[in-house]
C-alpha cells in the first residue's frame, strides 16, 4: 500500500469535516467499546491471562530464530513448502512465481494485513492473476477502489447507503438498502469465485512451531473456504507471528476475539497443517507458506520491540479518541490508530510519518485495553525523542522547546513568563472560558478544537497565596 502518512494533519482535517464519516464512526463506541467490557468480564482472571500472553509473546520473540526453524522443519515434514522473503517486494514476487508455476488464473484472498503492506493484489493482477478479496469489508474496499481504514472492519468508514450505491453499480442488480440483503447479495456474487479459483491466499494469525501449523481466525467462513476449496493455498506471515504450541494459541485466543469484536470466540478458527492427505476429498494439493521480514528484524533490535507482540485485535484504535474522530485514513498506511502510529514509522522510517507519534492524546486508553500490554504511549514518546534527536521536528517546535528548557531552568524567569501567559490567556478566552483560535503557529491546534483558557493566575501564585493564608 502506498505510504501517505506525511499528510496526517491535512487528511485528519478533511475527515473531521466529513459528516458521512462521523456517522459511520459513531457506531464504534456503542458496539465495540461497550461490547468489549462485557466480553472481557466473562473471564474471572482476565488480567492473569493478559500478563501470561505478554510473557508468552515476549518469550517467543526472544527465541524467534529457534521457533521459526522449528516451524519450518515441522511444516516441511508435513509437505508444506516454506519460503522466506526479506522484503515485501520479495514476498510479492514469490507469490506470483508460485501462481505462475501452478498455472493459476484466479486467486481468492482472505484478509491479510501483510498483503496490504506489500500491495499484493495489484502486483498479482499486473502479473496476470485475477484476485478477488472475499472478506465482505475488503470486498467493499476492492470494489470501490478504496483503502481499508480499520484492521478488523476495513470498510467501517462506509455507510450502508454508500454500499448500496456501490453494489447497484458494480453488480448491476436492483438497489438493496437492507444490510442483510446487501450481505446476501455479496454472498451470491462471491460464491462462484470460491468454487472456481485455483488459488487461495490467506494471512496467518499465528504460526505454531511445535506442529508446523498456520492458523487463521475469521467470522465469515472465507478463511476456511480459501484454505479448503482451491488446489493451491499460499499463507503469508510476518516472522513475529510464531508461537510455540497449540496451547499458547488457544489461551491467547480468549483475549484476541474478545478484544477484537467482543466475541467469546470467532466463528471459524482454522488450523492448517500441510496440504491434502491421501484419501482427502477437499484441500489443496500444494500448500506454500511465505515467512516475511519486511522491517520486522529492525524493530526487533530497537527500543520498539514490544510492538511486535501485537496480535492485531484493533482494540487500541477502537478506544482511541483520535481514531474515533478521524477514522483510519489520515494515518496514511495499513495500520491506523495507536499501533499504526508506532508501526508505520517503525517499518517505513520515522522521517516518513512525522505526525503519527503526535496523533495521540496520551490518555493511555490503548495501553489499558491492549491484550498483550504494549505500552503504546511510551513507544510513541520514544519515537518523538528519535525525531527530536534527528532534528526532524519543525524549526519552530525545536526552538520553542529549547527556549522553554532555558526558561524552565531559571525559576525567576519562568515565574515571570508564566504569569504573563496566564493573564493573556485569560483575556483571550470567551465567556465559556474556551479559546477558539490561538495566534501564530499555534493556530493550527485550535482549527479543529477549542483550548480551555487559563484561570488567569498561575499555580505558583495560587500556591504562594495559600501559604500566605
Amino acid at each position, binding site marked *: 500500500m502506498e505510504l501517505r502518512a506525511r499528510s496526517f494533519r491535512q487528511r485528519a482535517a478533511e475527515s473531521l469535516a466529513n459528516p458521512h464519516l462521523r456517522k459511520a464512526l459513531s457506531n464504534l463506541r456503542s458496539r465495540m467499546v461497550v461490547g468489549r467490557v462485557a466480553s472481557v468480564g466473562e473471564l474471572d482472571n482476565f488480567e492473569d491471562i493478559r500478563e501470561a500472553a505478554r510473557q508468552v509473546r515476549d518469550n517467543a520473540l526472544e527465541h524467534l530464530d529457534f521457533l521459526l526453524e522449528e516451524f519450518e522443519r515441522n511444516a516441511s515434514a508435513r509437505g508444506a513448502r516454506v519460503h522466506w522473503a526479506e522484503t515485501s517486494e520479495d514476498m510479492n514476487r514469490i507469490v506470483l512465481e508460485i501462481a505462475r508455476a501452478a498455472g493459476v488464473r484466479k486467486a481468492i484472498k482472505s484478509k491479510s494485513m501483510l498483503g496490504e503492506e506489500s500491495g499484493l493484489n495489484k502486483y498479482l493482477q499486473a502479473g496476470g492473476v485475477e484476485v478477488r478479496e472475499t472478506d465482505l469489508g475488503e470486498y467493499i474496499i476492492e470494489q470501490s477502489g478504496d483503502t481499508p481504514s480499520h484492521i478488523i472492519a476495513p470498510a467501517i468508514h462506509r455507510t450502508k447507503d454508500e454500499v448500496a450505491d456501490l453494489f447497484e453499480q458494480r453488480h448491476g442488480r436492483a438497489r438493496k438498502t437492507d444490510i442483510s440483503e446487501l450481505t446476501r447479495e455479496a454472498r451470491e456474487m462471491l460464491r462462484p469465485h470460491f468454487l472456481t479459483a485455483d488459488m487461495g491466499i490467506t494471512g496467518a494469525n499465528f504460526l505454531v512451531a511445535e506442529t508446523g*501449523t498456520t492458523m487463521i481466525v475469521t467470522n465469515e467462513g472465507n478463511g*476456511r473456504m480459501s484454505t*479448503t476449496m482451491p488446489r493451491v493455498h499460499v499463507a503469508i506471515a510476518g516472522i513475529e507471528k510464531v508461537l510455540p504450541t497449540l496451547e499458547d494459541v488457544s489461551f491467547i485466543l480468549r483475549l484476541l476475539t474478545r478484544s477484537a469484536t467482543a466475541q467469546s*470466540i470467532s466463528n471459524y478458527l482454522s488450523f492448517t497443517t500441510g496440504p491434502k492427505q*491421501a484419501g482427502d476429498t477437499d484441500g489443496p494439493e500444494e500448500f506454500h507458506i511465505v515467512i516475511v521480514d519486511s522491517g520486522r528484524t529492525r524493530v526487533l533490535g530497537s527500543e520498539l520491540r514490544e510492538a511486535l507482540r501485537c496480535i492485531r485485535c484493533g482494540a487500541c484504535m477502537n478506544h482511541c479518541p483520535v481514531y474515533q474522530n478521524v477514522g483510519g485514513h489520515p494515518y496514511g498506511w495499513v495500520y491506523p490508530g495507536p499501533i499504526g502510529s508506532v508501526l508505520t514509522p517503525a517499518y517505513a522510517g520515522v522521517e516518513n510519518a512525522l505526525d503519527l507519534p503526535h496523533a495521540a492524546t496520551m490518555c493511555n486508553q490503548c495501553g489499558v485495553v491492549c491484550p498483550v500490554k504494549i505500552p503504546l504511549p511510551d513507544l510513541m514518546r520514544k519515537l518523538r525523542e528519535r525525531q527530536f534527536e534527528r532534528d526532524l521536528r519543525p524549526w519552530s517546535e525545536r526552538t520553542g522547546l529549547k527556549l522553554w528548557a532555558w526558561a524552565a531552568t531559571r525559576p525567576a524567569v519562568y515565574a515571570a513568563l508564566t504569569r504573563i501567559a496566564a493573564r493573556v490567556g485569560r483575556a483571550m478566552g470567551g465567556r465559556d472560558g474556551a479559546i477558539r483560535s490561538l495566534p501564530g503557529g499555534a493556530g493550527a491546534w485550535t482549527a479543529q478544537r477549542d483550548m480551555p483558557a487559563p484561570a488567569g493566575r498561575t499555580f505558583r501564585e495560587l500556591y504562594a497565596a495559600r501559604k500566605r493564608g
Partner: protein
Amino acid sequence: MNPGEPVMSARDNILARIRTALGRNEPLDAQQSADMRTKLRMHPRGPQPDMSWDLLERFRERCTILSTTVDEAVNLGEVPAAVARYLSERQLPVAGACWPEFGALPWSPAGLGIEARAVTGDDRLGITGTFCAVAETGTLMLLSGPDTHPATSLLPETHIAIVPVSRLVRSMEDGWDLLRREKERLPRQVAFVSGPSRTADIELTLVLGIHGPTRVHVVLVGD
C-alpha cells in the same frame, strides 16, 4: 561477491538479522535447543478461566448465544426424526449430503433425501458429526479427513451436526489433548466452528450467513 564465498539465502539473512537483533549472533546451543523442544512437547497451558460450570448446561447456553439451535435425540436411530422436525418447522429443503458414518441412518422413513457423499456447490443441507465439542464456547471441533469432509459443514446454507453428549469437552485445550490421545497426528485441518457464519462489516451491524452456513443446528445424542 568473491568466488568461494557462501551464497546467503533470504532464510539465512533473516535468521542472522534476528540473532543480531537479539544480541546473541549465534543460534541456541544444543542444550538450549533440547530444553526448548522439551518445553514445546509438554505444551503447558496458559492460565485457565473458571470452568466450574456443568458441561452440558454450558454447551447449550453458549450455543444459544451463538445462534446455534439445539435439539436432542435419545440415540442415533432417532436423529433423522429430529432432523425432519427441525427442517419442516423452518420449511427448509429436505435433501442433502451427510458424512459416510451416518449414511445408514433411517433418513428416508423420516421423509428426508440424505446421501452419504461429498457436497457439491448446489447442496442446501450438510449433515456432519464432530470430533468433539467444546462446552466453554459452544464450539464444534471438526477434523478434515477422507470420511469427514470439511466442505459438508461449509458450503450448504444449513449445517446440522450430530454431537454425542459423551464427546463434550471443557476447553479447546482439552480438545487438543483428546486429539493427541486418539489420533496419531494432526489432520490437514482442524476447524473450530462456533455457530453460523457472520459479518458486521457494514455499519458494524451483525448479519448471520455470509460465506459459510446461515444456520447451524446441533442434535445432541445420548446422555
